[in-house]
Every structure is written in structure tokens, then in C-alpha cells.
């Protein structure tokens, strides 16, 4: 099992303003699966991604990511897991604006166990595969939004992660760019033999994935049983 949520509950806010975002969520992803987590905005898709990466801790339940119980493991172990075995694509790209596309792709290498410089060749290859070969020294801020998301995808794949988590990767893109980015992401994850969980409200991705999970009112279901 690559990722499993078991009876996970998560709330935000404090005291009387506390609001439950996830209710007893359970699901799992097997190796090589490409899974879409769909649902309306504000239903907790980003929370699921953050819980899976260990950036958030659930109120209850167990989250197992790549064999590490991220909900209770020490910060060092979870950080190492994120650095070496998980790739993350954010909706807002989160690139370093003044650095080049190559430097941005290379960024996760700094958190690994080897000198970041050793990964420059792979970073360049991924950048080219993302269709950015002519944008070597251009600062990220000067790229179009579609190009920025391509850089973010290349960055997520740099360390050859076993699990890629994409949070609304097409959220800020127009239709044409969104489809291209989705195809790039799925193709590249398949090429790297990875597992992908895409949190999205974009219905176009349903035809491209192996499995779809629906998140509605903080509960997980399938497209056939949306009120599960």
C-alpha cells in the first residue's frame, strides 16, 4: 500500500469556532495507481493532501504514507519522507520567483542526502521533458502560468518519488493549458512508475485516471455513491 487513510477525522479552528473538515475518512492507494480526488472547493481536498504529506496532523485516525505513519512519526522522519519519496504539485505553483526554471526544479534536491549539484543533469532533463528547454535562465516570475506549473511538475518528479500528490494542478490555468498540464503530469508519473493522487474539481481529469474518489461534506465516496 502506498497511501492509506484509516478513519481520519480533522477539524480546523479553536474552541467554539472549531469546524470539522473531514469525517471518518478512509481510503487507500496501491502502487502505480493514478487516482483523482474530486469535489467542490472548500470540501477538504487540500487538507487530505497536507495530511498525506504530514504537514497536518489528524484529530483521529491513522495515515500511512509509504509505510510511515505520518500522523505520529517524528518531524525528521516525515521531512525525510517528503524530501526523498514524495513529490508535491501545488495549485499556486509556489516557485521561487526570481530563480530560474532549472533552479526551481532543483530545489527539492537541497533537502536530500546528496549534494544538490549532483541532480542538475536530471533537473535539466525533467525541465526539457516539461517543454521548457528554451527557458533555461529565465526567472520563474517571467514564465506564463502554464509554464510555471510545468516547472512545478518537473520539480515534484526530481527525486523520482514513489508518490506524487497534486493539489488542484490546473486550478489557475485556462482550458488548453490545463489539459496539457494534466496530460504531462499523468504521463510523467506513469513514466517514472509512480503513484499519483490528484485533488481537483476539474471533471476533465476523470477520463485520464484509474480511479476517482469523491470528497463531499468531509466524507469520501466514489462517483457512484457520492453520499457515502
Amino acid at each position: 500500500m502506498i497511501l492509506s487513510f484509516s478513519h481520519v477525522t480533522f477539524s480546523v479552528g479553536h474552541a467554539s469556532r472549531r469546524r470539522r473538515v473531514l469525517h471518518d475518512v478512509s481510503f487507500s492507494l496501491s502502487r502505480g495507481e493514478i487516482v483523482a480526488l474530486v469535489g467542490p472547493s472548500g470540501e477538504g481536498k487540500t487538507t487530505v493532501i497536507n495530511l498525506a504529506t504530514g504537514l497536518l496532523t489528524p484529530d483521529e485516525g491513522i495515515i500511512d504514507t509509504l509505510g510511515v505513519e505520518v500522523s505520529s512519526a517524528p518531524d525528521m522522519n516525515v521531512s525525510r519522507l517528503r524530501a526523498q519519496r514524495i513529490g508535491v504539485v501545488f495549485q499556486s505553483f509556489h516557485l521561487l520567483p526570481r530563480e530560474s526554471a532549472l533552479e526551481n526544479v532543483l530545489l527539492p534536491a537541497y533537502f536530500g542526502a546528496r549534494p544538490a549539484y549532483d541532480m542538475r543533469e536530471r533537473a535539466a532533463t525533467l525541465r526539457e521533458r516539461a517543454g521548457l528547454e528554451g527557458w533555461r535562465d529565465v526567472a520563474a516570475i517571467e514564465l506564463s502560468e502554464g509554464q510555471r506549473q510545468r516547472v512545478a511538475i518537473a520539480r515534484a518528479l526530481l527525486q523520482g518519488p514513489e508518490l506524487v500528490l497534486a493539489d488542484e494542478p490546473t486550478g489557475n490555468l485556462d482550458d488548453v493549458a490545463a489539459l496539457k498540464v494534466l496530460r504531462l503530469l499523468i504521463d510523467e508519473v506513469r513514466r517514472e512508475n509512480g503513484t499519483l493522487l490528484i485533488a481537483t474539481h476539474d471533471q476533465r481529469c476523470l477520463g485520464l485516471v484509474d480511479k476517482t474518489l469523491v470528497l463531499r461534506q468531509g466524507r469520501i465516496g466514489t462517483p457512484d455513491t457520492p453520499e457515502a
Partner: protein
Amino acid sequence: MIFQNVWALARKSFSFTRTATISPLLSVAMASGASLLLLSLVIGVRRVGVGGLLSTLPITRLVVGPKQVDLLFLRLGSSTVSMESSAIDSLRNIDGVAAVWPEMVLTMPTSLTGNLIGTPFSTDCATYGVPLEFFPPEQRPSGFSRAKTGEPIPAVLSLQLIDLYNSGFAGAQNLPGLSPKALLGRHFNLFLGTSSFFPSPPGGKTKWVRCKIVGLSDLVSVTGVTVPETYAKEWHEWYYDGAESPKFSSLHVVVESSEQVATVRKEIEALGLQARSPGEMAEKVALVSRYLSFATAVLMGLLLLLAGMGTANTLGLEVTFQAQRIGLYRALGASRKDVTRIYLLRAVWIGVSGAIAGLIPAAVLLLIADSLLVRVLPALARLPSSPLAISPFLMLISCVLAITASVVAGLGPAVKASRVDPVVALRRQET
């Protein structure tokens, strides 16, 4: 994270905040430079004043003389007043007194002639006689004993006399300075019974003796020549035909231990005499030096505090402004410890760069100041060739202090950076 990557990220964050880095760099540079200047000055003063004076004078020795009024560095009273030999017995009876070595003064007029750097000179002087034991064992001049017939009489001059000559007379007369080494072995003639102020009356007794300088000491009187006691007694006897008892300008009391000095001093003063330590002046210098050291420590502390505050302030602001970058680092795999290391390393970088930037001009300034001081200061016999203490060790201390201040100041921001919540920080950018 391996160190190479931590360092690369620490450097990466500088390049975007060059302007913000200048302010803490300057304050650390000023702190390290000022630390070096102050340390060199204080240690220089201590070395010249305390090391040069205090360390050479035995603290268990008291110089007893007739009562005089002391006004800090100024001594009021008659230096011609002398004591009878009965005072020696009174002092020997005091508990804690190990020995009393009298400094006999010849009450007849005396003068000397000699040849100083090719120039003949003549001057009135006082003549004293002391036993060899008058000098502490480690300071005893060799050859200070009765000479063989026909050989010159051994004499000791005051080191302070050389200082006075070098700092005043030599400069005024455009004469070269004297070093103690150059004076050793030189000869002069000592005239007994006559001087320019008190020439010998017709038929009065006069004679001259050949003397040789065998030593220089802080313990002997500054106003004259000191010879072995046996000669002084003989000359006194010869001049007065036994009609006058010997007189003593001072009596040197050796106290058994430093703890007893205060008690012995009180008892001496109860006898109507005055006791002072030969190291009194040096002790005053030491006191001033201690105040100076304290003031320096306070000033250095303030400068380092200011440098630290500058570093802490800049790094704190950077952490606030770079929260999203830190959040991204955390989301991509940096642990809290890694983030702490990145910002601490940045503080180290500011400390090292600032310290080096401050030390170089400070060292140049010190060298210039030192060479100027050598020219300006009088050529005192005990003054080292370099009045300011300039050493790689002091540079290292200043450097370490500045880096420590910077690192300590960087601890707060580094911990603050490690506590940045990546989820909140990344969400902030989206909004």
C-alpha cells in the same frame, strides 16, 4: 540535509536581501574592530603599567621613612630628613618583620663626574649605602660587594633615574636616550666631601673614588648613587672621625608574608614613621588599569549587544518576509532542524564576514597608532618597543566574540523560522 546543501540555501537567501545584510554586517564589523582596539589598548596599558612596574617590585617589602604627606602621586615633605639607627631596632621588634635592610645616606656633600656618550659631565648627587641583602635574591646585581684593591667600587643607579633622563633631560638637550644595558660596566668618579652647592671649605676633607655601574634597580633612591654599605660606613667614619652616628634615608622592611603587610604597616605608622610599598605607584597604575579593563568590558559588551541586536533584528525581519520560502522548504522536505541550521549558518556568515571586515581596518589603525605612540611617548626604560598589544591571539578573541554575538543573536530568528507553519505560510501566498 547535508552541510553543503544547508550552506547553499543559506547563501541563496542572502542574494535577495543584500541591502538588509549590510546593516548587521556593519554593526558586527564595528563590534569586532572596536573589541580589538580596546583589548589591545587595555592589555598594552596593563603590560606597560602593571607588568612593567608591579611585577618587578616585591609586595612584601615596605620602605620606611620619616612621615610625609602623600597626595596621590605627589609626595610632600623633606626628603633630607633621615632616621637614627635606633629606628632599625624598633622595626626589627615588630611581629611579622623578617628583616630590616637600612639605606644609609651620606650626610656629607657628594658629586660625581663622568663621560656620557662622549660628553664629560658633572653633577651633585646623594650617596647611599646598602647591604647586598637589601636587594631581593632575584634582583641582586652581580659584583655588588667589596671590590679588590685598585678595582672600581660597584655602584647601582635607579631605573627611575634613567626614565627621568630619557623622558625629560635627553629630549630637552637633544641627547640620545639611554638603555639600562648600555650603562652597565660604565665608570665614573665619585667625589666625597664636596659638591657644586656645598664646596669643601679650605682645609676640609675631600677625596674621590672610581666607581663602576654594576646594576640598575627600582629599589634604590632615585637621587643618587648606591654603593655597598661597607663603603658608606667607612666614608662616614672618615669624614666625621666617628663623631656622628650614621643616618638612614629609608629602612627597607621585608615582611614575612603578604597577609601580614597591612598589620606591620600599621605598627610602623604607630612608631611615627611612614611605610610605603615600592609598588605603590604601580598599584595605583594597576587600579587605574582595573577600572579601564572594567570600562572596556562594559563598552565591548554594549558594542557586542548592539551588533547582536542588529543581527537579530535583520534576521527576524527576514524570517517574517521569507515565511513563504520557509514554508516551501518545509513542504518540499526540510525539517525544522534543517531550517534552524540554514538561518543559524546565515548568522555565522554575518558574524564571520563582519568580524573580518572589522578586524582588517582595526589592525591597520592599531599599527599606525602604535608607530605614532612609539614616536610620541618618552623612551622609558621599561616601555616595550610596541606599547599597544597587537597579537593574532587578540584578533582571534575579537573575531570569536563578534561571531558568538552574531550566532547568539541568530538563535531567536532561527528558532522562529523553524516554527513557521508551512500550511499557513503557503496559504498566505495563495491569498
